[in-house]
């Protein structure tokens, strides 16, 4: 059990420091006894106490009489050691150390109970509260703990690349493809979709309400340059940020150029914080539907969803397991169980029903059935052209012990 090692390391540090403290004085004391300094102090006391003694040659000596020395030893114990004797002092320190060890061992026992899957995920999925519901249900059924690390898509992917997470839940097909090509991930599954929306102040200074997404961006740029509108960008390499950049590009606007302009504000934060920033500054921003609906319902923002239609705004969420051949420490087995749960009927129903009661509409739409049955060909073709690689949600070379995951294709 390698994880207990830090306990021994700290025990070792403790032992070295305390033993040094206890052993070093033995040497020092010997030296000090011989030192002139001590002799002088001793003799001054002897003078004071009029206990100078004469040595065998009949000469007065500066040496302390052995009897005096022993007597003074007792005095020091009385005067300085009453409150906290050496034994008590060491005891207090040892008690502190033992208490620390108990704490460490207790925390250790908390950390290593049962198996767990570490899922690094986008803020939009986490902030809406969906994942806590999914994680609780999965943990209950499978007896596997799920730990969610909430970060933007870019960071979530980096965590997995470093081998620190077992599963990623993200929404940025282009970054996902890079992740798969790097050999870091396997068994991608599209689990859900919804639509991004362009939200902004209700007085709509750039007059974009109801326009197409690309028209909207062009208008906002004009209004921004005229000094009447602001744009808030996530600026954190998240899936939403990637989407935003691709939208600017599709509208033939150079992001590198406009980000230097004063109407383009980069938040460098998650969706919720960016929405709040946009709200404070009365700026336009691109948001996923889930987070926007939650914040608007809770009365935290007064921004309105101005542009919600258009295939450019499609938002597709996928799950990918860390590749066990590149990250042997990853918990691949439980990661696959988590993915299977997400694409199962039960997991998909959870996604569909989440938020129905509170918002009157689902925040996320399950994707698995849609991709299987051809019930909505238009939407299906949008997803295929936006989020499929080589005509598949996960080309065969990026699969590993996938079991029945792709049987329905």
């Amino acid at each position, binding site marked *: 059990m*390698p*994880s207990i090692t*830090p306990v021994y390391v*700290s025990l070792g*540090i*403790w032992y070295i*420091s*305390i033993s*040094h*403290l206890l052993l070093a*004085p*033995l040497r*020092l*004391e010997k030296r*000090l006894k011989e030192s002139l300094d*001590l002799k002088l*102090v001793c003799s001054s006391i002897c003078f004071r106490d009029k206990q100078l003694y004469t040595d065998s040659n009949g000469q007065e000596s500066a040496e302390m009489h052995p009897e005096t*020395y022993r007597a003074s*030893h007792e*005095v*020091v114990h009385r005067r*300085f*050691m009453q409150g*906290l*004797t*050496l034994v008590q*002092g060491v005891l207090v*320190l040892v008690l*502190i*150390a033992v208490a*620390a060890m108990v*704490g*460490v061992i*207790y*925390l*250790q026992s*908390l*950390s290593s109970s049962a198996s767990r899957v*570490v899922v690094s995920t986008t803020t939009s999925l986490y*902030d809406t509260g969906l994942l*806590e519901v999914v994680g609780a249900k999965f943990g209950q059924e499978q007896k596997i*703990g799920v*730990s*969610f*690390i*909430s970060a933007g898509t870019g960071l979530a992917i980096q965590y997995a690349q*470093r*081998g*620190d997470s077992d599963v990623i839940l993200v929404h940025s097909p282009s970054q996902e493809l890079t992740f798969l090509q790097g050999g870091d991930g396997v068994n991608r599954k599209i689990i859900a979709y919804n639509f991004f929306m362009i939200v902004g102040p209700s007085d709509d200074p750039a007059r974009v309400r109801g326009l197409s997404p690309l028209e909207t961006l062009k208008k906002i740029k004009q209004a921004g340059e005229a000094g009447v509108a602001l744009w808030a960008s996530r600026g954190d390499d998240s899936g939403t940020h990637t989407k935003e950049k691709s939208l600017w590009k599709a509208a033939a606007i150079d992001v590198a150029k406009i980000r230097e302009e004063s109407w383009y504000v980069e938040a460098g*934060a*998650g969706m*919720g*914080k960016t929405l*709040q920033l946009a709200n404070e500054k009365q700026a336009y921003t691109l948001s996923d539907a889930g987070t926007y609906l*939650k*914040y608007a319902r809770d*009365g*935290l923002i007064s921004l309105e969803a101005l542009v919600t239609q258009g295939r450019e705004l499609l938002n597709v969420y996928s799950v990918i397991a860390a590749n066990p051949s590149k990250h042997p*420490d*990853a918990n691949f087995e439980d990661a696959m169980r988590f993915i299977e749960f997400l694409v199962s009927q039960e997991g998909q129903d959870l996604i569909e029903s989440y938020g129905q009661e509170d918002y009157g509409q689902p925040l996320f739409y399950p994707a698995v059935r849609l991709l299987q049955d051809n019930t909505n060909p238009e939407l299906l073709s949008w997803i295929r052209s936006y989020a499929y690689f080589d005509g598949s949600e996960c080309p065969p070379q990026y699969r590993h012990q996938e079991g029945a995951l792709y049987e329905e294709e």
Partner: protein
Amino acid sequence: MVEAIIEGFEKAFQLILSGDPEVLSISARSILISGTATLLAAAWSIPLGLLIGVRSFRGKRIVRSTFNALLGIPAVALGVILYLALSRSGPLGFFHMLYTPLGIALGQAILITPIAVSFITSAIESVDPEIHRLAKTLGASETEASFAVLRESTGGVALAITASFNRAVAELGVALMIGGNIRGSTRVLTTAIAMETGRGELALGIALAIILLFLVAVISVLMNVLGGRR
């Protein structure tokens, strides 16, 4: 907006007074993790502070000024360094300590060690050097004399430990980067405040902030009373 703040405070007090399990478990976890960190730091900082404070040795000034310089180490910077070290692909990855409560405790212990060592050393040095010399004059061994000094500086040492705990419980960088703010495992007061405020749960954020302030204040007052008694 003022109404929203007042409403937030109202809800916050309701949460605290009704003993909301989420609030309670986060607070308990925070105390447990930072308490362990403080005990760990105390276990190695008191002997270290004693050594530096009482002994004179070559390079003592360098050691002292190193600890003093490390006093203000930003928690985020330490968080990044520890994250890289503890990451599964990092040099200490085999400990599997990333995203565990123990990882946070160790990280915080390292974070507060300079504070503990520096304050304890100062407390010990501020004790009249005569006491150390007198104890030795009267025949105490070096260890006994050191403990005599330690006893005289109990108040200062207690203050150092309090300051260390307060820094540990109030820091965000290490807890966030090493812990990852995992619900039910590594979510502590500071990470929860940051997250809940970010995702719009203002009442919960305020409630946790009040608890954090209360905790720090109570412990400081308690230590002042205990330390001032002598």
